[in-house]
């Protein structure tokens, strides 16, 4: 029942919002992963980011797609929590780690099962249409599951359509730029550097020349 609701939401509501109300211009769609395990990395400006990234993937993959979302924001708020878990299908992540608990356990076991994770390494939506510093959790995850390739996706325009703190959706076209998939060979530093470089290249392709702020590097 809930699986059918989820399918219906993404087949009808999400596609109506993303493709008709907003409208996408996708460059390099062929670079998207066609099967799991995989990590899709996005810049985060709006709640719409997740809807757009999930609409980019074919509906057959829907049962495999899990957006990683902040447990403190999405869990425990009644209806929002039910919607986030059952319809969007989030994988909750503790943003403030508890001593002795592995915060990435759920993510890495999902990857082992062959799921496709959607991750926002900026950690939060931040200022509209600005790329924040990347957190290094993604590198730990990628190092643990070397068979999962990371595909960076740069989205532009959604911070105008529905920025943080606004409830009114205003239609704007959204430009989506898909980057080449990255591998993690175990070295988290080079992985973060190449992810950062991929984003700079995509932002430049999108006409946003402002370089992103410095990265928080993982300890060597």
């Amino acid at each position, binding site marked *: 029942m809930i699986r059918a609701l989820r399918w219906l939401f993404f087949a009808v509501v999400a596609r109506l919002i993303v493709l008709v109300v907003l*409208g996408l211009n996708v460059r390099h769609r062929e670079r998207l992963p066609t099967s799991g395990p995989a990590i899709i990395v996005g810049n985060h400006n709006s709640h719409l980011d997740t809807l757009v990234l999930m609409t980019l993937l074919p509906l057959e993959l829907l049962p495999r797609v899990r957006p990683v979302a902040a447990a403190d924001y999405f869990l425990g708020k009644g209806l929002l929590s039910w919607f986030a878990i059952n319809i969007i299908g989030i994988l909750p992540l503790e943003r403030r780690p508890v001593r002795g608990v592995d915060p990435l356990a759920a993510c890495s076991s999902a990857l082992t099962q062959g799921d496709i994770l959607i991750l926002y390494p900026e950690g939060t939506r931040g200022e*509209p249409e600005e790329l924040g510093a990347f957190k290094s959790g993604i590198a730990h995850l990628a190092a643990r599951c070397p068979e999962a390739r990371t595909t960076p996706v740069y989205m532009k*325009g959604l911070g*105008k359509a529905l*920025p943080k703190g*606004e409830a*009114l959706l*205003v239609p*704007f076209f959204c430009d989506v730029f898909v980057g080449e998939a990255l591998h993690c060979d175990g070295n988290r530093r080079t992985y973060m550097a190449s992810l950062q470089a991929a984003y700079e290249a995509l932002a430049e392709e999108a006409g946003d020349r402002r370089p992103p702020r410095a990265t928080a590097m993982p300890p060597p």
Partner: protein
Amino acid sequence: MDALAVSPNVVWVFAAICAALLCASAISVLLARSAGPDGHRELRLRIRSWWLMVAVFAAALTLHRNLTLIFFAFVSFLALKEYLSLIPTRRSDRRVLFWAYLTIPAQYVWVGMEWYGMFIIFLPVYVFLFLPLRMVLIGETTEFLRAAGTVHWGLMTTVFSISHVAFLLVLPESRNPVAGGAGLVLYLVLLTEANDIAQYLWGKSLGRRKILPKVSPNKTWAGFLGGVVTVTVLAVMLAPYLTPLDPLHASVAGVLVGIGGFVGDVVISAVKRDIGVKDSGALIPGHGGILDRIDSLTYTAPLLFHYLRYLSF
């Protein structure tokens, strides 16, 4: 023909358009064969998109009157969205832009009600007065004039002008017994697009002297004049099947569309040059965005509408 809401003449003209497109497809296949598999890729893409656009337009125009109105309202929505996505907008104006979108259903409801008085003053008067008021209530004064000016220009271009195509549809059927409102819509759209293609072909084959090098370096005098002559001949040929115009009046209509179409094209080119983009979007493969396709129509629609209305309605 009972299932269709339009006269047989409209169907015949659509058949002629399909025949012309078949010729274009055949030529592009022959060209591709002589130039190798990758030759003229852009042209083939363009023609394929033309087929799709003609199919959608034919369905929207012939099935039901209200479907035609919804179709043009959707074209306005896509064009306004493309325009607002291109221009710089202030974050504080989000609510103003939302109101701007709401003018689209309102404007096409006036068309559906055949309420000419409201249709013709709603955007130039009421919306023109209301949106700056809404901006003032929000209170952001930095770049106020630019924001108010750009939003209103966009609405006049993408909503007011394009809704004139839709109003042709609801003009009294009795004054155009040969093809009704749908015939007038088809006459306008066909002439406008034929003008675009003719200007391009004349310019490519004969064009030498540039007409507006600063705005649109590919436009030439030969293209412009060739387009005007071609579309005038076409306007006179088609008029007896689709309009109440006699040959003299039809030739003036052709000149209006030829000049108006050229101006609409270069005005949108100037806007794109100002913003710094080549195409307004990527919605239609081989053509660019929706604004790239309807740029000429933003001028020809109000010009031909008021010309026809003055003469016959």
